[in-house]
């Protein structure tokens, strides 16, 4: 026994100074930052995306709950109030002039007012929202299925992704996100204007936010002003398909 105790004590004594742990920790971080390592690790995202697409029915629904299951308070995250006079003016007018532009690879580009959107067939769903941070909240959402808007606009076959443009500026850019056509045409993917039977609160993305129920929260673009059909994500932001994807390497596919 004693032959183990001594060296261990010496080890602990040596590691006691915080400075002694510095080289080891920085070596770990150097591995984390190495481009080759990052490239290998990011294969995990592609494996998750490919396996989920291959094994799960493309139209499989996220679980829907009952009103008894609702979170008492639905937590807001990210932007809670978009800055700037333009958004404030929209708030003052009750979003009466808010428009969502449908552009890109579509036969008929057009824009929709909130009244237009509310006049379309509606879908209400009680679903669980999962933040990438780990928390979950259950809320009831009402809005129009994105697939109806895409069909009305006549999305071309060359379109492979749908990009969402938003009114909230975080740091240097307006928020943006994107998804593939499978999630874009999924029955539960809606542009929601109501949460828990009330008009969508500003903190949750008023007047219009995306619900993309099989992915994590950062994909659910809030304050949506534009829907753009594109063939590639190369020209969008830095090319990774979303605000956080481009800035801090969140995975584009957020189904896990």
């Amino acid at each position: 026994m004693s032959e183990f105790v001594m060296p261990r004590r010496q080890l602990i004594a040596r590691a006691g100074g915080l400075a002694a742990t510095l080289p080891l920790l920085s070596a770990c971080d150097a591995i984390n930052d190495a481009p080759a390592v990052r490239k290998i690790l990011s294969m995990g995202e592609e494996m998750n995306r490919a396996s989920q697409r291959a094994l799960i029915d493309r139209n499989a629904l996220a679980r829907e709950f009952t009103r008894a299951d609702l979170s008492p308070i639905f937590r807001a995250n990210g932007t809670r109030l978009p800055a700037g006079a333009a958004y404030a003016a929209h708030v003052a007018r009750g979003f009466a002039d808010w428009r969502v532009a449908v552009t890109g690879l579509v036969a008929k580009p057009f824009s929709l007012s909130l009244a237009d959107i509310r006049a379309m067939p509606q879908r209400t769903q009680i679903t669980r929202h999962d933040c990438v941070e780990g928390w979950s909240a259950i809320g009831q959402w009402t809005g129009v299925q994105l697939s109806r808007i895409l069909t009305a606009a006549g999305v071309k076959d060359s379109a492979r992704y749908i990009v969402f443009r938003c009114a909230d500026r975080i740091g240097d850019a307006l928020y943006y996100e994107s998804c593939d056509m499978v999630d874009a045409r999924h029955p539960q993917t809606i542009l929601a204007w109501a949460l828990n039977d009330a008009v969508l609160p500003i903190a949750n993305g008023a007047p219009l936010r995306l619900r993309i129920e099989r992915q994590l929260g950062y994909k659910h673009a809030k304050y949506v002003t534009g829907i753009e059909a594109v063939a590639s994500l190369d020209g969008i932001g830095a090319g990774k398909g979303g605000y956080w994807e481009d800035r801090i390497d969140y995975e584009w596919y957020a189904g896990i």
Partner: protein
Amino acid sequence: MAEAETPVAPSAPAPLATVRVYRHRLPTRIWHWVNAVTLLILLMSGLMIFNAHPRLYWGEYGANFDRAWLVIGSTADSGYLRIGSLRVETTGVLGRWTNAEGVEKTWAFPGWATIPTSYNLADGRRWHLFFAWVLAISLTLYMLWTAIGGHLTKDLHVRRSEWSPRHIWHDIKQHARLRFPKGEAAARFNILQKLSYIGVIFVLLPLMIATGLTMSPGINAGAPWLLDLFGGRQSARSIHFIAAWALVAFFFVHIAMVLLAGPVNEIRSMVSGWFRLPPERKDGA
């Protein structure tokens, strides 16, 4: 695992001859070391992900306004861990600690325990979700090999006589007295070893993978029964956390046993496969 290189004749043991047995076959050794690296990375990157929301809940939902059964938090000058109504001050280790540059931080787990060492959820997830694949694939292959290659029936199978409470109690007492099997008996797994290895391979590791998948909104749509199995996404997250610490507990007991039973011989056997049988005790115990 008990292929003796030198024939062992229990009736007439050569007093000084070292008896070596081929104890661990190649798949076991490869899987062991792949796991050692994989589980360490999964634990440390998992602690990083936990730091993003250091609260655990039971049920389907759970966020800041909901009751958490476990919280690692901080006050103006201290860090704490709260489990239920039990609160423990953890300043310096959890909730409030000083990083390698001497800067005070209030993330739940300290930088020396996480991958990467400073808060970065995107990178933590990247390590975690890549090595989760390594774990899942290697575990699946190893389970198949234990079943097909005979490891399960020959070495891990608990015989009827071993299930007797007397036998198990005897083994617990022997372990508590640090009296480990000697001679030929050391070439076989004892009942406590069998139960721990079966528990890790067939219960804990599959539980880690299943609860991990239950946190995936994509998997939830394809396999909603997982939500029912674990009682909701936040319950799955809590079970994932608890099972991770059960694996850490296994690790510490495992290391303690290796150190007590003879670290050089034990580690060498997990590298080369060959294990030197400890000589029989004189008192015959």
